[in-house]
């Protein structure tokens, strides 16, 4: 019996601390593990006793890459608990802020974390020596996303302007003008980006996934919608916990999420794209088609194209939202706290992010539950590792190891997010 193990003890170019190992016995994969050793930070524990109004700022600190996603899921959950809907231009501004985060987060991944794999570089700094114009374009696109977040949110990491009910301050229409030019440039650069990444070579790999994403009657999903899948799931967000369960595996500091009926599923750009292609703007659809993608794409390596299409969509949508913007009379909707339960799911750059809060009549949080996208993808990532290695056992170890890393990076995993909800026993003496 021959046994070998392909492993990386500290994954690079992912957000947070993780590792993987694949055990091969007699030319079969005996075990594939994504290990998350990022230390848990117990957000769900210390949210208890905090005021509802603190949740957007506190949960933002779960992730420096997608703080807006946490702020959005938190404010929507609170508003649902209090029976308030935030509509009109305030809703549009939230969508606009989220576009900024998608651009920033996706441009980071496409150019700085993912593209170096396809072109054979260890990082973007080395890639820049041979492809300076490409890297500069990526950095400028990322900067445009950050500029939108900083303008609307006050700063790009942990924005300060979001509150339950809306914003602390809303911009005038005129103040958007300089930003609009930058975003229009970004839209053009995104078209070029889709074209560029479509030329990369992709391994032939297209498992039969169950994709899960939000779906909205009119929009490509960001802040709201029903939860749907390509295998018939179609549920309102407040029944999420009836359909999904979390399991504790011994080797990971993050819980594994699965669909009760069918097991592993896939969230993120690829899932959104497959379930919502018809909701993309005409420009984004056209760019996807020109890149050789149809309305369905199951190859996770091609997620770099899909992510680029979503960057294009986010620029396009941001321009549209700004062009139709009129300053609302008040920056936020007033609300009275009330006892109850509120939940929400929004589309973080990496997929659906679910929050649920139980509140007392003063608006104090009694219980909190947060399920980030990366924990939902863990099982699927392990399945991919298993299948991919089994098909490529002939590759030399160094190459196979790099490709396994790439299999994981396809998901843009955010390990910092994934750990923060595990309830560990702390022993004291």
């Amino acid at each position, binding site marked *: 019996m021959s046994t070998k193990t392909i492993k990386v003890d*500290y*994954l*690079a*170019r*992912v*957000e*947070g601390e993780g590792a993987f190992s694949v055990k091969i016995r007699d030319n079969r994969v005996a075990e594939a593990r994504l290990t998350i050793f990022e*230390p*848990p*930070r*117990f*957000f769900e*524990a*210390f949210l208890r006793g*905090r*005021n509802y109004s*603190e949740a957007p*700022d*506190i949960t933002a*600190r*779960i*992730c*420096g*890459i997608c*703080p807006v996603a946490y702020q959005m899921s938190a404010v929507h959950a609170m508003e649902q608990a209090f029976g308030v809907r935030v509509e009109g231009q305030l809703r549009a501004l939230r969508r606009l802020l989220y576009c900024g985060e998608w651009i920033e987060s996706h441009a*980071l991944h496409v150019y*700085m974390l993912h593209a170096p794999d396809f072109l054979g570089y*260890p*990082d*973007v*700094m*080395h890639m*820049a020596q041979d492809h*300076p114009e490409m*890297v*500069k374009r990526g*950095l*400028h696109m*990322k*900067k445009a996303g*950050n500029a939108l977040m900083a303008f609307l949110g*006050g*700063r*790009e*990491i*942990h924005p*300060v*302007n979001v*509150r339950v009910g809306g914003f*602390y*301050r809303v911009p005038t229409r005129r103040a958007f003008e300089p930003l609009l030019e930058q975003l229009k440039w970004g839209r053009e650069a995104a078209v070029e980006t889709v074209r560029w990444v479509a030329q990369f070579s992709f391994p032939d790999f297209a498992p039969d996934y169950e994709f899960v994403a939000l779906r909205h009657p009119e929009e490509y999903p960001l802040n709201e919608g029903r939860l749907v899948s390509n295998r018939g799931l179609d549920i309102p967000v407040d029944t999420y916990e009836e359909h999904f369960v979390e399991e504790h595996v011994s080797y990971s500091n993050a819980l594994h999420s699965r669909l009760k009926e069918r097991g592993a599923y896939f969230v993120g750009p690829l899932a959104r794209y497959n379930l919502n292609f018809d909701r993309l703007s005409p420009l984004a659809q056209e760019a996807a088609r020109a890149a050789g993608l149809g309305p369905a794409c199951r190859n996770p390596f091609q997620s770099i194209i899909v992510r680029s299409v979503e960057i294009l969509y986010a620029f396009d949508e941001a321009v549209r939202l700004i062009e139709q913007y009129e300053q609302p009379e008040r*920056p936020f909707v007033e609300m009275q706290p009330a006892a109850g339960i509120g939940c929400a799911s929004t589309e973080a750059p990496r997929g659906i992010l679910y929050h649920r809060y139980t509140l007392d009549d003063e608006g104090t949080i009694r219980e909190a539950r947060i399920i980030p996208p990366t924990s939902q993808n863990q099982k699927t990532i392990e399945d991919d590792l298993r299948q991919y290695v089994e098909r490529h056992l002939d590759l030399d170890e160094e190459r196979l190891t790099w490709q396994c890393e790439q299999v994981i990076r396809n998901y843009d995993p*955010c390990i*910092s997010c994934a750990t923060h909800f595990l309830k*560990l*026993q*702390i*022993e*004291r*003496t």
Partner: protein
Amino acid sequence: MSRERKPTLAVWKFASCDGCQLSLLDCEDELLAIAGEIEIANFAEASRAVVQGPYDLSLVEGSITTPHDAKRIQQIRRASRYLVTIGACATAGGIQALRNFQHVEEFISIVYATPQYITTLSTSTPISAHVPVDFELRGCPINKHQLIEVISAYLNRRKPAISPQSVCMECKLRGTVCVMVAQGIPCLGPVTHAGCGAICPTYNRGCYGCYGPKETPNTRSLSKQWKQLAVSEQDLLRTYRTFNAYAEAFRKESEAHES
């Protein structure tokens, strides 16, 4: 620059959100220039290439929350000529230091973490509780321009020009009208370390202290002022117990509002 070799930079992560090290990648206009002056030798979030230490400059993000990390920071200190902590987690224990308040006896006795554990320590502590730190950069998150200043000061062998003043000074410099005086909005600006550029008051909300306490803050006096604005003891407690809860001045003031 006519150096024999480029100095090396390493970036390390402990319990944190990744946001402070992301600030380095957020230096879109400066990143390639920085990489031209300093060799990015160990930065897992950005590169799979690792150059062996020792390193000239180490940037440390995150707080110490596991026994493994308590050992790892010792190794990193030994491998680093100059060690800078970046952000509220690394300088004050971060939001995860709220666990430190779960038992009263603990927050008195813990300066250096020596607890028992299975998988995690009962406390979240700043890097300086474990090893000597050469410079601490504040903020949740840090300001990327200040990060560039710290790296640039290191390269030029000078002290970083980082103001230890309060956020109030930044409001005055920016021309922002005081939200507490003019609108009666409770604001932590008078006791909070400068560095963010006074963003919150400019966005019509009070400072919430994410840069931690300034030098010699008069928190007692500020709390009195807040009470005149009808802020409850419970809300004062919560206010001081956020992202820099374990920083000494905020920790002590919060204890004064425990019921």
